[in-house]
């Protein structure tokens, strides 16, 4: 142990700072790179755990009838799969990227508030413990769906309270992290880096951070009302006391829809970084990309009730939310066209990060178009709460967000570890993931159209064939991620030495520092022309 830490010191030549070593290096860390690493590992652990829950779901749905879990346990699996994937896997992964990359990309020595940064990471741990431990309390984990609609969630046991507290803590963590990111971006850019010269990834995160600050308190409000309804005799969501169950849905989705973009905008940022690198051509339409991102962010606050088309809103409300939702496809389309124009007449190579990015553009667009189908209110009446919706949001969240994260990991891994990852295995991971993903989720469009509701543990026999296909795909998708873990660990332990530049077509400040990036970078700010 002592020798490795000593070696570590020699590597970086920063003994004078006296930063802690061993376990304390991580517990007390105020270093953006270490905190970024912790965020990414935390997120991966949560990804695997919530993925294991999904394996349980797919095992039960492999055939009609009840085989492995009882219906109440099944509902716990779907609920916690959703909660943990969203709040434990996707969101922290993007914060991990922000921690590592934002200071490196804008030429800052660290985040603006390093101690707050430490706190926002360590807040994740009690939240994760609350969520995981909730499986072991009387009555089992929360089972009312990740959306926690009352009155159902008022019926639940203490695990619902644990989930609510976990989300409160995660909300604090996200808000603190966002303030940190915004402050860093506004105050710590290298001289000469004007806002419109910032890398696109930094732009998308700046806008995401604002979305988080605006949306997370709304979630906290809804959850607090829920907990006072549960325990302190209020009736916000109970008609018998003058409340309204649908009020919760309005407040929840006012958070929930921006949340969707919180999970996809940084992914857009990653794509906008990777595609120009491997097309060896500058990003097409940088300015329109910035405006499109901002437009999506603004629109995301006025579309929430499209999640509630079947609640029986008045016609005027239904029309407004249908039109505003359809409008979102315009800026989203602009982004897709810009990526295609970036590839057009480039000089492309297809290393793993690029493979992931091209697949994301393709598959995310499928998710975007099915989103447009769902936006058409009369059609949504048939599709709402069916497997079609499950297919839709997995195309945007798995093949949009999660696969962008994987692409981003492969892209920056050489910079983080100093070694090239195993390209051959990376490609294997890409192909198995992409194929298994489509085998899992594409048939769900059909089961949804044919009328299979989501969140059911058992189904009529007409859905048996497609469900079996989906389950086989899901197991393959789950196993593929073990390969991802192996490739990453292999890369950390060794491999071809990475150059500073790493990728031939890479541009930006992060590629001017050594690989692996030294413990402290840009102590004197670089000059950006």
């Amino acid at each position, binding site marked *: 142990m002592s020798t490795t830490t000593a070696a570590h010191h020699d590597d970086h030549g920063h003994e004078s700072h006296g930063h802690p070593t061993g376990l304390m290096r991580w517990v007390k860390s105020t270093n953006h790179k270490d905190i970024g690493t912790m965020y990414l590992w935390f997120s991966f652990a949560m990804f695997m755990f919530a993925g294991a829950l999904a394996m349980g779901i797919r095992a039960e749905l492999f055939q009609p009838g009840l085989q492995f879990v009882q219906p109440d346990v099944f509902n716990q699996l779907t609920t916690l799969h959703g909660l943990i994937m969203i709040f434990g896997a996707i969101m922290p992964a993007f914060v991990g990227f922000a921690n590592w990359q934002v200071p490196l990309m804008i030429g800052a020595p660290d985040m603006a508030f390093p101690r707050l940064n430490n706190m926002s990471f360590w807040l994740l741990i009690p939240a994760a413990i609350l969520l995981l431990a909730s499986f072991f309390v009387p009555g089992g984990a929360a089972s009312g769906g990740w959306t926690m609609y009352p009155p*159902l969630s008022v019926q639940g046991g203490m695990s619902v309270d644990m989930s609510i507290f976990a989300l409160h803590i995660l909300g604090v963590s996200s808000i603190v992290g966002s303030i940190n990111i915004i402050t860093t971006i506004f105050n710590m850019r290298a001289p000469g880096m004007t806002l419109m010269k910032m890398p696109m990834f930094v732009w998308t995160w700046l806008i995401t951070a604002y979305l988080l600050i605006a949306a997370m308190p709304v979630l906290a409000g809804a959850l607090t009302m829920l907990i006072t309804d549960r325990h302190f005799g209020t009736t916000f969501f109970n008609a018998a006391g003058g409340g309204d*169950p649908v009020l919760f849905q309005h407040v929840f989705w006012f958070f929930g829809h921006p949340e969707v973009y919180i999970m996809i905008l940084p992914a857009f940022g990653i794509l906008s970084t990777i595609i120009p690198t491997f097309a060896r051509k500058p990003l*097409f339409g*940088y300015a329109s990309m910035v405006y499109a991102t901002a437009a999506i962010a603004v629109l995301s606050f006025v579309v929430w009730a499209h999640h509630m088309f*079947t609640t029986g809103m008045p016609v005027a409300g239904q029309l407004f939310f*249908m039109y505003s939702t359809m409008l979102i496809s315009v800026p989203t389309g602009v982004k897709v066209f810009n990526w295609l124009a970036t590839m*057009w*007449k480039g000089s492309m190579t297809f290393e793993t990060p690029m493979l992931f990015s091209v697949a994301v553009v393709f598959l995310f667009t499928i998710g975007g178009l099915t989103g447009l189908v769902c936006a058409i209110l009369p059609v949504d009446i048939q599709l709402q709460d069916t497997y079609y919706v499950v297919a839709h949001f997995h195309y945007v969240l798995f093949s949009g967000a999660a696969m962008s994260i994987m692409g981003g990991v492969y892209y920056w891994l050489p910079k983080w570890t100093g070694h090239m990852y195993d390209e051959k295995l990376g490609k294997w991971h890409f192909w198995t993931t992409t194929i298994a993903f489509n085998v899992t989720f594409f048939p769900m469009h059909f089961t949804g159209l*044919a009328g299979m509701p989501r969140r059911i543990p058992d189904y009529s026999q007409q859905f048996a064939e497609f469900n079996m296909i989906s389950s086989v795909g899901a197991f393959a998708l789950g196993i593929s991620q073990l390969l991802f873990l192996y490739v990453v660990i292999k890369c950390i332990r060794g491999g071809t030495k990475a150059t500073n530049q790493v990728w031939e077509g890479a541009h930006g400040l992060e590629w001017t520092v050594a690989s692996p990036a030294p413990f402290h970078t840009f102590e004197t700010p670089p000059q950006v022309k």
Partner: protein
Amino acid sequence: MNKKVFPFLGTISGLALTLVASTTHAAYDLNLKAPVTEIATQIYDLHMLIVWVCLAIFVVVFAVMFYSLYKHRKSVGHKAAQFHEHHTLEIIWTIIPALILIVMAVPATKTIFAMKDTSEADMSVKVTGYQWKWEYDYLDKNVKFISNLSTTQDQINNKSEKGENYLLEVDNPMVVPVGKKVRVILTASDVIHAWWVPAFGVKQDAIPGFIKEAWFKADKEGTYRGQCAELCGKAHGYMPIVVEVVSEEKYNTWLAAKAEEAAAGAAGADKEWTKDDLVANGKAVYEKNCAVCHQASGAGLPPAFPAITGGKVTTGPLEGHLDIILNGKNIMPAWKALLNDVEIASVIAYERNALGNSVGDIIQPSAVKAARK
């Protein structure tokens, strides 16, 4: 190159053929259910329109991408151009999608107005969602009944062969006359449910404490099946909806039979029952209404659903037992709205004198009737 591509194409088209061929057999349904109402037909057509438009956009856009992936590769020696802006192009690909959206929005808007128009209905049925059953109340006709899943537990637990309508069958279907505009008034007693019949193009949340409306006019006689579409707890997957659309004549016969049934049930309340008769009658009532939570064995699912066997209420004073069944408590619904006097007296007798309990006392249906007041 061609040698590599063709077997691949062959496999794909082979797969596609298998898929198309097997659609005649219902197992690989690829599209919305065949519509039997005007609204459902409009939805079906709207969906097809949008799917074809989206598919066309998708094919054009990704044809461009795959062309580029093929031609603009470093390995074929393509040199990267350095352009990064083109204002005309950017304006075009903002405006064209906006125009396409307008084309989609127009028919959709028309359908929305039609869906919302519940005026001039020929009849109204109030539908109430309970955990986990539906209640149908034919307003002004004195017909009111509960509709429960009729698939057996053995089928669900893979102990016997699954029937044709596994999980989509009920004991008491909703019956409506063909060609009549039926207004459905929806509410719920406990949590939010959603009443969904795909062939009618109707899906409406049933929200406790609120009344929501929907309507349908079925043009074709037949049996149409749907399911609850809003997560409502443990047995959410087990509360199907079955609607039988029949001729006016058949509907009237059914209506008369239902009214007679209700009258017979009410009459039973005035006669004196023996313990054995009540217990025997109570078994069926219990298994239909209570077993989903308290289990057929009476073991319950604590802590949410207490055990009947040796339970505090079921072995305690009779009055307390009756009170909880009539008025409910926490998740337990108030059964006075759902069961008649004989059924309540029977289930009390069954719970106290079977399922491992032998308290020995019973309550007469006439006493239940009195306690309601």
